[in-house]
C-alpha cells in the first residue's frame, strides 16, 4: 500500500497525464477559448462581429445570393450560404468558424496521437497552440481560414490511416486544397515532403498528391492571375515585421515573446537532426516572408512554432536541475508568461473594433445619397457592407494596380493644408463623405489642427452630419457641385 502511494507521489503531475485526461482537458479548454472572445464581447455590450473580414464574408454571401459576384472565390462563402437559409448571417459568422475550429482541433489532436507523440509533449503542443494569439486570430478576425484548416488537417489525418477509402478521400481533399487557399496548398506540399522524410509513407503516394495539387493549382490560379482580386488584401498590418510577429508588441496575430524564446530553444535542441527538418525550416522561412503580406500566415506558422516551443519547454522541464527552487520558479514564470501574452491578446480581441457605435454611425450614413467614403483602412468592407456605400479602399482592392496610387492620395488628403490640393484629390477620387474616429485621429494626427482636421473646420468645404461617441461623419459639400 505504502509502496503504491510512494510510487504515485513520485509520478507527480505526470501520473495524471492519461490519454483520457488529456483529451477531456483539451476539449474543455478548447471550448472555453473558442467561445470566450464572442461571449465576453457580448457580455461587455458589444454585439458586433470581430474585425472587418467577417463583414466581407457576409457581403460575399449576399452577392452570391444576388448572383453578382465580385468576391474572391472561397468555398467558405458557399457553406455560409447554405446555413444562411436557416440562421441569420451574423450568427453564422460566429458559429461556423467556431465549429470548424473545434473540429480541426480534434483532428489535430488525432494526428498527434496517430504520430505517437508522447503524451507530455502532446499536452505541451496543445497548450501552446491553444494559447497562441495566432490561433485566436484565426477564428475571430479571419474566419474563413478555419474551413481551410479543417480540410488541411482532415486530408493529413486520412493519409495516416490504412483503409483505401481513407487514402482516396485524403487524395481528394489534397487536390481540392488549392481552391481553398493558395498558401494552404503550398504549405500542404511542403508538409507532404516533410512527412515523406520523417514518416513511413509511400513515396509514390506523396509524389502523386504533389503532382495533382500542382496541376489543380495551375488550372485554378492561371486564369485568376489576370483578375486583380486573386487574394484578400492584408488589412491588419500597419506594424513593422517584428511588431507583427511578436503579439506583445502590438501585433494582431503572431506569438507571445515566451513562445518565441521557447521555439528558439526547441530549434537549438533539434538542430542535431536538421537533415530531417529541412522542410520545416523552409516552411518557417516561407511563412515569415508571406506574413509580410498576409497576416493569416501566422496561423499556419503557429502549428510549427507550437511544436518547436513544446520541444523547448519539454527540454527545460525534463532537464536535471540542481536548484529545485529555481526550476519551479522558471517553469512558473514560463507558464505565466505564455498565459499573460494570451490574456493580453484576448483583451485586445474582445475590445477590438467594430463596436455598436461604429455600426450605428455607418447605419446613419446608409440613407444618404451614394458617394465614396474616405476613412482609414480599418473601415474596409464595413462601409460597403453596413452603410451600403462605396469605400475608397474597397475600390482600390478591386483594382489593385491603383492601390498604391489611392493610398498615396489618402495620405495626402489626411495631411495636406492646401485647400486646392484637397479639392483636386477629393474630386479625383469622387469622395463624398469622410469618417473619422478617435483612434484614427490619435494615430494619424498629433495635433488637433493638423492636415484634414483643420480642413474639416472649413464650413465651405465640409458639413458635419454625425458626431457621437468619438465617431464623426463629414459630408464634402463640393461633391455635388463638382
Amino acid at each position, binding site marked *: 500500500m505504502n509502496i503504491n502511494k510512494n510510487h504515485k507521489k513520485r509520478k507527480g503531475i505526470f501520473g495524471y497525464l492519461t490519454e483520457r485526461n488529456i483529451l477531456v482537458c483539451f476539449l474543455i479548454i478548447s471550448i472555453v477559448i473558442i467561445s470566450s472572445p464572442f461571449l465576453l464581447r457580448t457580455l461587455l455590450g458589444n454585439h458586433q462581429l470581430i474585425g472587418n473580414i467577417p463583414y466581407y464574408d457576409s457581403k460575399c454571401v449576399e452577392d452570391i445570393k444576388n448572383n453578382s459576384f465580385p468576391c474572391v472565390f472561397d468555398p467558405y462563402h458557399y457553406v455560409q450560404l447554405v446555413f444562411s437559409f436557416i440562421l441569420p448571417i451574423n450568427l453564422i459568422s460566429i458559429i461556423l468558424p467556431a465549429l470548424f475550429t473545434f473540429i480541426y482541433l480534434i483532428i489535430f489532436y488525432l494526428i498527434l496521437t496517430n504520430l505517437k507523440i508522447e503524451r507530455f509533449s502532446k499536452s505541451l503542443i496543445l497548450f501552446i497552440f491553444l494559447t497562441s494569439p495566432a490561433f485566436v486570430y484565426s477564428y475571430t478576425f479571419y474566419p474563413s481560414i478555419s474551413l481551410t484548416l479543417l480540410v488541411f488537417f482532415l486530408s493529413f489525418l486520412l493519409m495516416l490511416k490504412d483503409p483505401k477509402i481513407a487514402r482516396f478521400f485524403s487524395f481528394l481533399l489534397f487536390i481540392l486544397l488549392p481552391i481553398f487557399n493558395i498558401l494552404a496548398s503550398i504549405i500542404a506540399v511542403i508538409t507532404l515532403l516533410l512527412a515523406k522524410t520523417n514518416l513511413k509513407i509511400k513515396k509514390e503516394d506523396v509524389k502523386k498528391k504533389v503532382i495533382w495539387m500542382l496541376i489543380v493549382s495551375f488550372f485554378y490560379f492561371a486564369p485568376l492571375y489576370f483578375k486583380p482580386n486573386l487574394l484578400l488584401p492584408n488589412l491588419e498590418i500597419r*506594424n*513593422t515585421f*517584428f*511588431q507583427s510577429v511578436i503579439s*506583445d*508588441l*502590438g501585433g494582431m496575430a503572431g506569438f507571445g*515573446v*515566451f513562445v518565441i*524564446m521557447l521555439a528558439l530553444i526547441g530549434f537549438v535542441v533539434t538542430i542535431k537532426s536538421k537533415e530531417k527538418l529541412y522542410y520545416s525550416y523552409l516552411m518557417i522561412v516561407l511563412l515569415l516572408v508571406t506574413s509580410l503580406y498576409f497576416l493569416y500566415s501566422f496561423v499556419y506558422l503557429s502549428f510549427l512554432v507550437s511544436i518547436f516551443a513544446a520541444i523547448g519547454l519539454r527540454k*527545460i522541464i525534463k*532537464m*536535471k*536541475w*540542481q*536548484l529545485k527552487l*529555481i*526550476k519551479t*520558479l*522558471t517553469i512558473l*514564470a*514560463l507558464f*505565466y*508568461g505564455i498565459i*499573460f*501574452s494570451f490574456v*493580453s491578446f484576448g483583451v485586445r480581441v474582445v475590445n477590438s473594433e467594430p463596436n455598436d457605435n461604429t455600426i450605428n454611425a455607418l447605419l446613419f450614413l446608409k440613407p444618404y445619397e451614394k458617394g465614396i467614403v474616405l476613412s482609414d483602412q480599418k473601415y474596409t468592407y464595413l462601409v460597403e457592407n453596413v452603410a451600403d456605400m462605396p469605400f475608397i479602399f474597397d475600390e482600390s482592392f478591386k483594382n489593385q494596380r491603383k492601390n498604391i496610387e489611392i493610398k498615396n492620395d489618402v495620405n495626402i488628403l489626411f495631411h495636406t493644408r492646401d485647400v486646392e490640393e484637397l479639392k483636386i484629390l477629393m474630386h479625383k477620387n469622387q469622395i463624398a463623405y469622410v469618417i473619422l474616429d478617435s483612434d484614427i485621429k*490619435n494615430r494619424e494626427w*498629433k*495635433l488637433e*489642427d493638423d492636415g484634414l482636421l483643420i480642413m474639416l473646420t472649413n464650413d465651405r468645404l465640409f458639413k458635419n452630419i454625425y458626431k457621437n461617441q468619438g465617431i464623426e461623419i463629414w459630408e464634402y459639400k463640393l461633391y455635388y457641385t463638382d
Partner: protein
Amino acid sequence: MDKKEIIGLSIVFGLVLSLRLFLVFQTSTFDPDAYNIIRHIDFEKKNLTPLTNDELSYGGRTIVNLPAFSYIMTFFSVLFPTELVGKILPNIFACLIIFVVYLISKDLTKNKFASFVSAINAGFVPIFFAKTTNNISLYALAIPLMFFIFYCFIKINEKKDYFFYFIFSLLLLRVLHVSVILIIISLLLYLLLLKVEKIKTTRKEVELILFSTFIVMWTLFLTFKKPILEHGFSLIWRNIPKSVLSNYFNELNLFEAVHYIGIIPVLLGAYTLYRCTVAEKSKKTSLFVSFSLLIFVLLWLRLIELDIGLILLGIVFSIFLSKAYVFFFRFMGNVKISRLKNAIGILLVIIIISTSFTTSIAYTKQSLKDSVSEEELNALGWIKANTELDSVVLGTLEEGYLITAVAKRANIADKNFIMIKDASQRVDDIDLLYNTVYETAALGVLDKYKVDYILFSDIAKKKYSIEQLKFINDKCFELVYSEGIKIYKPVCVLK
C-alpha cells in the same frame, strides 16, 4: 577579504566619497534632471504611492517607471532633508563600485595590488564620476549593483550564498532600472561565447541564466505592457523626438571614449579585451568580455545612450586594468629589465590614477556649472507663490522637471517622453518659440498649449544662443518678473 584589504578599500572609499561630497557641496542646487526624482520623492512622501498620473508634466500624463530608487530616496528623506539626501546618498551608492570592482578584479587575477589599482580607477572613471555626483542619478546605485550581480554569478559555483545574493540583487535591479536587460543579454552572450570556445558550463550557471531570462522578461513585459504596445521598438529610444535624439544616442567616437574613460584604461582595456578574446580564454573573464562586446555593439548601433554605454565600458575597462597589470608583469618577468618592474609598476599606477583623477575633477566641475542657478530657483519660487495653481509655464525642455518640481506648475514638455504622442511636436514648438522673431508664430504656440507664463532663463540663453526673446513687445507680453531670469505673461490672443 582580510583586514588590510578592508582598511585599504575603506580609505579609498573614504577619499573618493570625500572628494565627491566636496565637489557636490560647491553648489546648493542640482543638475536640472535631478528635479524629476525630487518631484517623485515629494509625491511619495505625501501620498506613499508612486507618481503614476502626473497632472503637471505635459499638462497631464501617465508615468510608467520603476519607482524603487525614488522610494529608497524617499525613505531617507523622511529622516533627513531631501536636498541633503540627494547630495549624499547617490554618492555613497556610486562609491560602492570601488568594493565591487576590487572583488571582481581579485577573483579574476588573484592579485591584490592590481585589484586595488582597478578599484581606484573605477572610483575615478571620469564619466561615471561626473554623471553621478550632482544628478541624483539612478545609475549611481544601478551600476554597482549590475557589477555585483556579475560578481555573484562568477562565484555561484564556489559558495551557495552567492546564489541567493545573485537572485536578490537581480530582483532589486529589476525593480530599480530596465538596465537589468543588459545583464540578461550578456549572460546569454556569455553562454554562446563559452559554447564557441568549447568551455564547459556548469548546470547551475545554465539554470540561473534560464531563470533570470524568463523572470526578467516576463516581469518587464508586465510592467511596460502599455508603453510597449504604444511605442513598439522605439521604446528602446524612449520615444525621444528625433530632433533631440542625438543628444542621447550619439555615435561612439574614440576620442570621446578616451576623454570620458581615460586614455590608459581605454588602451589597456582594449588590449585585455583582445587578449582575453583571442589568446587567453578564461571562463570568468568571458563574462566581462561578453558584456563589453555587448556594450560596444549597442553603442555602435546607437541602441544605448552614449553616456551610459561609456560608463559601463569605463567600469569594465577598470576591471580589465587589473588583468592588463598581471599580463604586463608576466611579460616583465620574461625580459631582462625585471629588476625595474616595481618602479615601472608604481609609475604606471601613478599615471593611471593621475590622468583619471584630473579628468574626473575637470569634467565634474564642468557639469557642476550646468547645475540650476539660485536665480532660477528664485524665479520658479516666484511662479509658485504668485501664479494660479492651474497655470501653464513654458520653459526649455531642460527646465521641464524644474517647472513641475519647484514651481509646481504644468509644463509643455520635459525629458520623460514615454507615452507622449506629440512629444516631437511639443519639442519643435518650444524651439520655435525661443527662435522665432514673429509675434504671431509665438502667439500661435502659446495659444496652442494655453501658456500663461514664459520662462526666459540662462539655460534658454545658452541653449538657443540668444540674449532676449526676439518676438517680445510690451503690448502683448507683460514682464512680470525680472531678476536676472525673466518671466513674461502673454496678454494677447491670436484670432
